[in-house]
């Protein structure tokens, strides 16, 4: 029982970070219908910014969010304006390819600049834990989780209650109709890509104190983000949050009750089952 509760708990906490990666991807997909294969590489950039601030100025990774998030937002805006914008109406395979190419360029540019060494970021709380009822609650994971909750809440509020947020949502629901309603669809796309990139960057920053950093770190996270997003329903923020946590828990429990080597496999099987039986995802509205 203790093993079950412990695994459930770490699954939920790690799932929080997965959720954040997924939210970034879901905003981008929702507004632009572009599957961003460079998402993991954006996360990697967030990690490097965080690492740089920590190594140079000794800024705490969680505090550095205040810098990482805006920097990545601007980077996302730039990428959207220069590259993604040109393929919004192109064939889907060309969009996929463009983002794959961008990912390769980003990870290899970072490799040339910073070598491919693993970077480790160690803070005073890195491997500490709180003991609650005999369970160990990882300190850094708990902090990351709380920050994720706060950011998701703020983002949700922004999308629901501000004019810009509503315009983004309208664009996500129906691009053409939104355009007819006088919404500046192009601007919304730029904003969405910026926001999505910032979310990936924040996720990178939150992972930094517990993970390691190297140029090719992004790949597995890209795949995970896809799973999270489809599980939750493409374009749904609440869905991505639930999807992230569901995947964290699935991984954690299947490592204990199936086999550690199969935890990713179980996640993909779950993913396919959901695709087949609830193609719109857990919370997505039907899009067919």
């Amino acid at each position, binding site marked *: 029982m203790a093993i079950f509760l412990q695994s459930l708990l770490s699954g939920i906490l790690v799932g929080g970070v997965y959720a954040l990666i997924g939210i970034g991807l879901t905003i981008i997909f929702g507004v632009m219908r572009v599957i961003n294969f460079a998402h993991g590489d954006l996360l990697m950039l967030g990690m490097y910014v965080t690492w740089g601030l920590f190594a140079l100025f000794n800024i705490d990774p969680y505090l550095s969010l205040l810098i990482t998030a805006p920097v990545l937002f601007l980077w996302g805006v730039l990428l959207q304006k220069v590259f993604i914008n040109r393929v919004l109406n192109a064939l889907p395979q060309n969009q996929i390819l463009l983002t*794959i190419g961008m990912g390769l360029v980003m990870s290899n540019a970072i490799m040339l600049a910073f070598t491919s060494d693993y970077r480790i970021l160690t803070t005073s709380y890195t491997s500490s834990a709180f003991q609650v009822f005999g369970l160990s609650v990882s300190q850094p994971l708990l902090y990351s989780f709380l920050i994720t909750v706060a950011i998701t809440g703020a983002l949700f509020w922004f999308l629901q209650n501000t004019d810009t947020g509503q315009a983004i949502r309208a664009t996500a629901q129906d691009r053409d109709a939104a355009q007819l309603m006088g919404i500046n669809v192009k601007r919304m796309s730029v904003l969405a890509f910026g926001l999505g990139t910032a979310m990936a960057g924040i996720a990178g920053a939150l992972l930094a104190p517990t993970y390691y950093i190297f140029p090719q770190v992004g790949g597995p996270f890209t795949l995970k983000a896809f799973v999270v997003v489809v599980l939750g329903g493409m374009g749904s923020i609440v869905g991505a949050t639930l999807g992230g946590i569901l995947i964290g828990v699935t991984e954690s429990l299947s490592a204990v009750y199936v086999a550690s080597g199969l935890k990713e496999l179980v996640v993909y099987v779950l993913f396919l089952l959901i695709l*087949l039986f609830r193609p719109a995802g857990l919370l997505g509205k039907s899009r067919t």
Partner: protein
Amino acid sequence: MSSLLRSLRTPRGFSAPAFLAYLAVIGLVALVPQFSRKPLILHMWIMVFLAIAQGSAWNIVGGYAGQYSVGHAAYFGIGAYTTMLLLELHQIAPWYGIGLSMLNAVLLSVVIGSITFRLRGPYFVLASISMAEIIRLAALHFKDLTRGAEGILLNGIPPLETPWFTVKFLGKVPFFYTSLGLAVIVISVTWFVQHSKLGYTFQAIREDQDAAHSLGINPTLHKNLALMLSAAFTAAAGSLFALYVRFIDPNIAFGIDVSVQMVLICIIGGIGTILGPVVGSVVLVLLSESLRNPKWLVQAGLLADSSPTVAFIEARLSNAHVLFYGVLVVVVVLFAPEGFLGLLRTAVARVKKRLAAKPTPPSQPAAAA
């Protein structure tokens, strides 16, 4: 030449000059080992042929039927594993093994197709990726069957004995001809797909699945047929790759890079055309080799050993070859979305327009020659 170009622009059926040109090109390529036995050059030809086979095979389902699978590593890997396991564990010679591996891939494609073809667009892409990942993870985990991450090392390939001759699979030349043969077969199959009724149904599905359905085409059936064809030849390419490299593990055989490479070949060359994957393979293999190892150009006799280009690439670009690969992909998607073949076609059209604008072109004989 112009008739060849016309046939690839608007292919309506069999054209004797184009067919002869095709045979002539194959004949010329087949003579290569008679003139140059430099192993690196032959190795690169083999890599190009295998890339053509993979790209053309993907093109059947991706280019003609419009189903952008990013999970073809599943078929490549199942081919590689079937052949290697049969050879290593049961001493079944690879020429039977390749046949069985194609059969195995077809069976797998039926399973994967019946799951993924219920989905469309981005959902299909993601489902195809996850199927390949499931197989990769399973191959890593179930060590009794696959030897897991330790991979399979090939000790030797038995010689192929026929009543007329014996082929020993040593060195590059046998692999040169087998992979050339495979590439020719897959290109021919693509030609057949483009010109047959079956191919028209594939293209109808690509253009508008619902309209095709309303015309009485069963989209699921035909998408599955396209995938089966595609899977079989992808598996054959995987088998040859494994035999040639002599070692496979789940990441080499089932890794997502393999799937992405096949898509890249087609898009860089020109998707949904016969020659697209051929052009894409040549561009991709040669370019990545030129950036990684510019000295192959010296071996091929294209550059002098002292050439400043070689020195420049070695000094400046050798660590950045993947970066340039990425840049190439971005540039192609942005500026040549129909691939190199698309660029070529636009250029030909422009020249023709210019020629047509001049009532008495002085270069008429040159163009005809």
